[in-house]
């Protein structure tokens, strides 16, 4: 504490070398990126079918015409996602916690939760959208919604909750039993142990796989198109049918990508931060 640090010549030399190394690897990365991108673009433009492909898939005029409608449809996709996701998180965690209850009193609940995850993880999402979207209105029950958007959203929730519940469950199982013992020995009940000690640690661990499921859900909102609502894919279909041009599909695809890419980078960022917090070990 009393002596101040004066950088030694050895350290100065070391830092100079490090800087030079950094410059070298940066220029290497730049050159290789330019070369790879150049080759891909050249290969595409030089291919014999390119002019036709450009006309039917990448027509600027078709994009401009379709964009307002596709974008408006895409807002519906985003809306479905924003409503479904929080519900899925809450229900998924609930199902995972039910499966963790050990008391015999809860056997029926536990069995039901297990059955639910087994069945709904097995049904393809598109099938579930059909079953709920067309099956539920056919029952003609009082007070049950008939709106295809609502039914499609329910189908997505049913399917994704079963996946998210399994992600949460694996996170909960990965917390070392000594943490539970330490909490119980402080007098915390099972519920409080889960709430304050186990679940917070489990949730931190499963954030990357959860975000992965988010990205997947975000894409699958397009399946609601099967029931008729005018979301992005449906709007693109309409435009494509009118103009005999596939550019509207590319437009819709670009919109979906524009949303998933930031999410993927965010996932990477969180994963990297989690790794740093664990001190780089494991």
């Amino acid at each position, binding site marked *: 504490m009393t002596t101040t640090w004066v950088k030694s010549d050895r350290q100065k030399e070391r830092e100079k070398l490090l800087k030079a190394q950094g410059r070298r690897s940066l220029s290497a990365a730049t050159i290789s990126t330019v070369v790879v991108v150049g080759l891909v673009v050249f290969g595409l433009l030089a291919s014999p079918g390119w002019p036709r492909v450009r006309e039917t898939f990448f027509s600027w005029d078709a994009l401009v015409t379709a964009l307002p409608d596709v974008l408006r449809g895409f807002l519906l996709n985003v809306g479905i996602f924003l409503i479904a996701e929080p519900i899925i998180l809450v229900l998924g965690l609930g199902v995972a916690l039910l499966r963790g209850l050990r008391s015999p009193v809860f056997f029926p609940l536990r069995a039901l939760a297990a059955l639910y995850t087994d069945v709904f993880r097995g049904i393809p999402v598109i099938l579930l959208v059909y079953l709920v979207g067309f099956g539920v209105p056919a029952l003609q029950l009082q007070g049950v919604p008939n709106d295809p958007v609502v039914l499609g959203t329910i189908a997505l929730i049913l399917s994704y909750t079963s996946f998210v519940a399994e992600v949460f469950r694996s996170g909960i199982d990965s917390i*070392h039993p*000594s*943490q539970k*013992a*330490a*909490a*119980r*020995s*402080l*007098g*915390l*009940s099972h519920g*409080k142990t889960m709430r*304050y*000690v186990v679940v*917070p*640690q489990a949730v*931190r661990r499963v954030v990357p796989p959860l975000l992965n499921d988010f990205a997947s859900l975000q894409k699958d909102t397009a399946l609601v198109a099967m029931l008729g609502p005018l979301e992005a894919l449906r709007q693109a279909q309409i435009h494509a049918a009118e103009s005999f041009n596939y550019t509207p599909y590319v437009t819709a695809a670009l919109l979906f990508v524009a949303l998933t890419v930031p999410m993927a980078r965010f996932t990477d960022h969180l994963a990297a931060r989690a790794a740093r*917090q*664990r*001190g780089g070990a494991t």
Partner: protein
Amino acid sequence: MTLLTIDGVWKRYGEHDVLKGVDLTVDTHEVVCLIGASGSGKSTLLRCVNLLETVDDGAILLDDVEITDVRTDPDDVRKRIGIVFQAYNLFPHMTVLDNITLAPRKVHGVGRAQAEEQARELLTRFGLETKARDYPDRLSGGQQQRVAIIRAIATQPRLLLLDEVTSALDPTLVNEVLGVIRELKESGMTMILATHEMGFARDIADTVCFLADGVLLERGHPDQIFGAPQHPRTREFLSRT
């Protein structure tokens, strides 16, 4: 005054009888050290007292009330008995302060401000006041174990169980943890310690108990146990350590 009575406690894992009728009484303010070979059942006994294990026979009484009664609420008993394990005690997602205040706030209903003030007092008393906002992985092993002990006493338990709290530590860190235990003894805390630190046991214990073959073979004042052990098994054990 008798605080804890262990009466004929029997514990079996599968076909293996670990405890075969252990009898022990602990008075208020008394410090009892459990010694014995690895696998002799020291940890098992402490876990039984804290109801982390159920006994297969016999009874344990705290303040003359049987806590091994099947109708007692284990959470209620654990509010009055603190335990610190060998390692992996602290909650890694909480700061030191939150680790210490969790049980006072969520189990004993103490307000946040008051709980934090008490926690800071304890941290200051044990020389850790600068660590309140740190996460456990930023602390040394000895500091972590001291925080674990502080956390266990923050709820003012009647009895503190310490299970080899120094055996996962570097020898240079052992003393700072032993210092905390010494300080707790001076403040009158009733404790049962399982330990391999014979010098420390001799120094701090009011009573030393030698556990072997599932029973307490010998119990007595540390000078007697370490100076003139009666039982040949005790003599043999002590000569090996």
